[in-house]
């Protein structure tokens, strides 16, 4: 079995043995109730310093996307690939790889869901995984 490591600690949580879907770890400002991803130690909106860790919704809508044909330095995956911003109900628009959909199937506004998938193989650490979004497999229930 491949060993998997998160691309960075504190970004997402995968409940053991599929008890619940994975979620992103964000934070919410006690003062102005805004939510942020990744989590922050101070509120960029109101400068409040009391923020609580929260589990962000694993579903959202595709705010925008692009198909990248020329990869920037540091990226070693297949090309072309898709990157998008997914708007969560909490208001954040999360920049993430978009998977499980052909470029021709992309539409702004389409419902998306969080998945944790392979980012790249690290010769020392093993398979590095990251948060990604794919088209939601069932309709979003409000």
């Amino acid at each position, binding site marked *: 079995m491949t060993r998997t490591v998160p*691309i*960075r600690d504190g*970004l997402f949580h995968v409940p053991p043995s599929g008890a619940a879907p994975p979620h992103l770890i964000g934070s919410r400002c006690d003062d102005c109730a*805004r939510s942020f991803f990744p989590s922050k130690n101070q509120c*960029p*909106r109101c400068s409040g310093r009391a923020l609580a860790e929260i589990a962000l919704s694993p579903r959202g809508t595709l*705010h*925008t*996307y*692009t*198909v*990248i*044909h*020329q*990869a*920037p*330095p*540091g*990226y*070693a*995956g297949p090309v072309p*690939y898709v*990157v*998008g*911003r997914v*708007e969560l109900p909490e*208001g*954040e*628009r999360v*920049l*993430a*790889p978009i998977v499980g959909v052909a*470029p021709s199937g992309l539409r*702004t*506004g389409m419902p998306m869901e969080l998945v944790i998938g392979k*980012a*790249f193989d690290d010769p020392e650490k093993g398979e*590095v995984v*990251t948060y990604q979004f794919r088209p939601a497999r069932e309709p979003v229930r409000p």
Partner: protein
Amino acid sequence: MRPVVVLGVGLIRFGRYPDVPVAELGQRACWAALDDAGVAWRDIPVAYCGHAFQGSTMGQRVLNRIGLTGVPIINVENACASGSTAFVAAYQAVASGMYDVALALGVEKMSFKGMIDATRPDDIERPLGTGAMPTKYALIARRYMDDYGLTAAALAQVSVKNHANGCRNPYAQHQRRLTLDEVQQSRMISDPLTLYQCSPTGDGAAAAVITTEAVARQRSAGPFVRVAGCAVGSQVFVPGEPDDISEITKRTSRRAYEMWGGGPDDLDVVELHDCFTIAEICHYEGLGLCGEGEGQHLLASGATGIGGRIPVNPSGGLLSRGHPVGATGMAQIAEITWQLREQAGERQVTGAKAGVTHTLGGGGGMACAVTVLTR
């Protein structure tokens, strides 16, 4: 604040200078600006140097070549707005009464670099390939297209216009006319942005000498190019928009307009930050040249071409003049200065009396600098 005028400007043609040290590029631009101003370096009491990637004490490395006069040299950085921030700092130094004359310089050597990605080595955006500049702007473009019905062809037209202008600018990196087809058929970088919709990296330098109107009057009867308003701004919180480029442009330009006492309708010529085609469309709106969602119609109407109602980027802009980051803002200042002096040759905007420069730094809206020049 005292009235401040632009006494001289100078730049080198943007492009690739693999065999010329970056300090010499800066030196050549300073020579041009000092000669244009008719001022000797020993008469300059302070200098501000804008650059983003050249390492420590870049201003000293340029100016020590010109002469060791001991004056304060301050290096200023604000990503792609580094040069224009240096100009605002120089303006403030003179306007506030601290110095009677100042030199502002922007310099960058980027031909060793590939695509700019705005990430730092340990950002996860780097291995994920999500942080490149074309990506950020492609994401803006896609949403804009879907919100306002902008087509890929209409978007590409920005590059056609700016390359047509750059052909008339001896300082432009790309002096080649492009057809709509060439722009659209060029290599896809980050959909919908093709290669010719992305500003080229390159090397460049530009400089200006500014002084008080009182000092300028001792030298000539004028008319003078005056710094009527300027402002630097950073991001505010925009819900869900970590890379907002519009709010910061709106807010910063409004501050510069207010200082000037004019508005977008009073402008005759604009140099704005068209790092990608979509940016020009968005900045038409941000600078108030048209309403929200109307940028494509302003372009299609021909209003922003040379000879139009409000010519934008007559120099060719970042897309055609090139975008050696720290030099860009100073090159905009030079272009508007020439336009207001009616020295812009084949790209002259007839009767231009007021112009604005606009640069945006930091992969979205980390920094914005806007300057209004008038004659």
